[in-house]
């Protein structure tokens, strides 16, 4: 077995141990995120369609990373992020906001609510996979 193959297997095993919560009310965005992460990584994926469901699923599923839209019904992404940070087990989970509005005040609001990073719509699938990999590989 070559070293490259061994490294690849090692990486796959690690990826499959990680769980990502994808949160968006837009099916077009969820489709891209899900397709790119399922086809190009081995992470386990959990989906939620609004902020309230995201908080419930985050508590129940304890994901290693959360990718969350901002404008959603029932509870927006900023409020969901604040709510998640109140739970001890979710305090250090990386939360990446997926925002339609890339202006600085909007980004600042995201960081103030407790998110770690952001990507803007329209989603660039390859960039998304790289960011997710970056955060999860840092976790080991």
């Amino acid at each position, binding site marked *: 077995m070559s070293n490259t193959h061994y490294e690849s297997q090692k990486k796959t095993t690690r990826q499959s141990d990680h769980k990502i919560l994808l949160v968006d009310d*837009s*099916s*077009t*965005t969820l*489709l*891209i995120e899900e*397709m*790119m992460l399922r*086809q*190009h990584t081995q992470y386990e994926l959990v989906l939620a369609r609004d902020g309230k469901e995201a908080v419930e699923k985050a508590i129940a599923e304890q994901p290693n990373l959360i990718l969350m839209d901002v404008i959603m019904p029932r509870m927006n992404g900023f409020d969901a992020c604040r709510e998640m940070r109140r739970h001890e087990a979710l305090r250090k989970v990386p939360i990446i906001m997926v925002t*339609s*509005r*890339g*202006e600085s005040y909007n980004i600042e609001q995201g960081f103030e609510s407790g998110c770690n990073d952001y990507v*803007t*719509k*329209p*989603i*660039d*699938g*390859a960039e998304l*996979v*790289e960011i997710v990999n970056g955060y999860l590989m840092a976790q080991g």
Partner: protein
Amino acid sequence: MISKSESISISQASLADLERNLGSLSSQYMRWSVELPLNHEKQTVWARLYSAANTLRQAVREGAVENAIFEIGSNLIGCEQIALLVTTKKQDRVDFIGSAEFDPKRLDTLQRNAKRIIEEAPADSIFIEATDKDRSFLSSLGISARIPFSLDSATRGAIVFFDLLPQRKGLDAVDRELLQLLCTYTGPCLAASKTKHQKTPGWVQL
């Protein structure tokens, strides 16, 4: 009301063909995405086209094609406002629907210029502001992009896109591919949705 002879729908066989076609397309885009290295420039194209084709197929099933078009315009192309214009077969009336929070003043402008917006260009001609400067009429209305769509080989409407999101500097080759997909499939999807659900949406008479 329009007479039955005017109304457009497609047969059950064509409906099945369309659903199969959109399904094959989305599978093909996914396959191409998987086969390419992650950093390949085409990744973005295949991922967005996969999502758009899948969204349209689902919308035909659920009878919500206009919402799917707004989602594609907003989340995959990055425009804040989108409107759908559909003419009757006799071209004597244009029906409209705008995406959420569509500017009423802009809707009024669209209503006054609807026929010209649809007729401005040949049936398969995509207008993108900044690259198609010669269409000064469309630019003067603040339109970022406009695509026509057809039913039974006749132009029956247009989709107009306004206000790119602030992080977007302009529409690019990926957007053009998405616009082309919408240009090809909007008419058949609207007609198929009508056939499947035995009704047109309240805002339009196809």
